[in-house]
């Protein structure tokens, strides 16, 4: 598979009064064409910050301070605001957890869709209308709802509208940040199925961000695990579940009640998530890690790759080099 997105040593910091929040602190990853990468981790680990940095939407006091994001040959971190606006929506689009925040409540959803097309493409109105109707049909919304306002839709339907907007311009990459977190299980399954069908149909890549590793595993090809601004492990979804290497990944898998869990007893991760202004020295997970040794407390582990399996943990540094 051809590589579509290449993130290398990306650093995104928030310069707050309390200090510098190292939300994304040296993350490297690739996404191929047509691939779904699931990004998981605890609250505050930097998942959303990574997602919005791909769209040039990191809000102040946040800023990309280092590294590169190469998307289909284009270095995104160097783009001007105008140049980014041409890529956003058209080649990379985003679906948020709460569709209401991204839909204009005073605008009929049909007009919303048409306007989105016409901003990016110079086409006649009736053609824009046809394409909008087609996009709605694609996500299972009948054309008669074209003139309805967002508040007339249920949560699940609104998320479908968001997906219609996201696929409207046939982008190469969709960033979906907790797209089903606000939805019920049955509707969640409907939305995940929809995303899965669309990506097969259009060969789109998806970065699926979620705190729920169960949901992610439904459609992801690969899973990336973030902890305190670092990418600590990445591998094929089956490998992550069968053979996790990083102690944090194993802990995360055991801590989530999964319906077909191989663990009898629930387990929890001792301690609490670190403060990103003052992250622990060495490996950021060491205060909560059952395997921590002296080196973990003092030096940050390198990221090693064992075939396609990437892990950032001292346990694997010596053996595999």
């Amino acid at each position: 598979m051809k590589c579509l997105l290449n993130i290398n040593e990306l650093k995104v910091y928030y310069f707050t009064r309390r200090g510098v929040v190292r939300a994304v602190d040296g993350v490297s990853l690739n996404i191929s064409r047509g691939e779904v990468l699931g990004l998981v981790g605890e609250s505050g680990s930097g998942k959303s910050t990574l997602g919005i940095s791909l769209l040039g939407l990191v809000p102040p006091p946040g800023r990309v301070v280092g590294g590169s994001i190469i998307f289909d040959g284009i270095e995104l971190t160097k783009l001007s605001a105008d140049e980014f606006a041409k890529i956003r929506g058209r080649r990379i689009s985003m679906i948020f957890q709460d569709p209401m925040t991204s839909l204009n409540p005073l605008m009929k959803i049909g007009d919303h869709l048409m306007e989105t097309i016409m901003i990016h493409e110079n086409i006649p109105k009736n053609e824009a209308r046809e394409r909008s109707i087609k996009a709605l049909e694609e996500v299972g919304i009948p054309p008669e709802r074209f003139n309805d306002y967002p508040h007339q839709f249920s949560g699940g339907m609104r998320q479908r509208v968001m997906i219609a907007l996201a696929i409207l311009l046939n982008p190469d990459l969709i960033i979906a940040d907790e797209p089903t977190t606000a939805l019920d299980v049955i509707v969640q399954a409907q939305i995940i199925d929809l995303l899965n069908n669309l990506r097969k149909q259009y060969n789109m890549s998806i970065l699926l961000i979620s705190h729920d590793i169960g949901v992610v595993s439904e459609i992801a090809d690969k899973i990336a695990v973030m902890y305190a601004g670092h990418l600590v492990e990445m591998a094929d979804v089956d490998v992550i579940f069968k053979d996790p290497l990083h102690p944090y990944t194993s802990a995360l898998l055991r801590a989530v009640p999964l319906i077909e869990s191989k663990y009898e007893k629930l387990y929890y991760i001792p301690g609490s998530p670190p403060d990103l202004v003052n992250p622990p020295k060495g490996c950021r997970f060491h205060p909560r890690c059952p395997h921590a040794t002296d080196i973990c407390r003092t030096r940050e582990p390198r990221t090693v790759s064992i075939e396609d399996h990437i892990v950032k943990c001292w346990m694997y540094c010596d053996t595999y080099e």
Partner: protein
Amino acid sequence: MIRMSRVIISAINLTKYFPVQRGFLERLISRKLEYIRAVDGVDLEIKEEETFALVGETGCGKTTTGRLLVRLLEPTGGDIFFRGIRITHIKGEELRKLRRHLQIIFQDPYASLNPRMKIGDAIGHPLEIHDIAKGREKRQIVLEMLEKVGLTPAERYYELYPHQLSGGERQRVVISRAMILKPDFIVADEPISMIDVSLRAKILELMVDLKKEFHVTYLFITHDLATAKYISDRIAVMYLGKIVELATTDELFSNPLHPYVKALISAIPRPGPKAERERLLLRGEIPSPINPPSGCRLHPRCPFKIRICSKEEPKLLEKERGHYVACHLY
């Protein structure tokens, strides 16, 4: 294991209708008063020391049922019994005494604590209200409780205010406050849904430990079937104000009968390889509880519906021993 299982709390044909709030103009135009049928004829029996889970999608009436059972809401109809005594309409001093035995833990640990009260005082408050302990004695009981829920050093936590605690710690405070009176029955309404994934298991385990220690019975409300499976002995599944299936947890997951329950179970994300598994997907979303569909409330979404389904409401019947289902297919 055979255990004497007496019923601690039961409901018979319990209903709660909320009048629909309308704008002034609308009220002028239409005189007809409409109701949200939040709980619409629920029968259930919860046994001493069991953990009974109530699951279902948003708006199906779980919270309302829980609040009715602990008498925080006045029922529209039906009856509630606590250890065989009818408590449906008791009031005043009698109700105040009953409160000691029936407690509730709310979903949002942020909203359910007074921001200006030290957490030690918040936990000890019920002891004062019920004239059980005050002053030093109260402090001692609270400190012991803080130890039990892992908020240590207890002396330090006693003096903190809610905003100084993390979400997980706050939920421990809320649990402590519900436990301090050693109640018999606790409604835990989505106690972990607002807590970060990495901390959820810890809270669940704490609840299990406290249950063993205090011999308390839980009604555990959740929309997450995996959590229900982990924590509960029996499960009831609600749809639009009604219980559609009720069974032991093992039985419900190994042999679900109701199409809605089958759909719920098949919708649960399963980790591991993306083996294209067969999913039973229902069309659409839950209809409005104001004018629920005629007959079986699931029929507009049900792939198995037969003629009778739109005409007659199915009753909740015992299909196999201890396994109840409300569906015309059975």
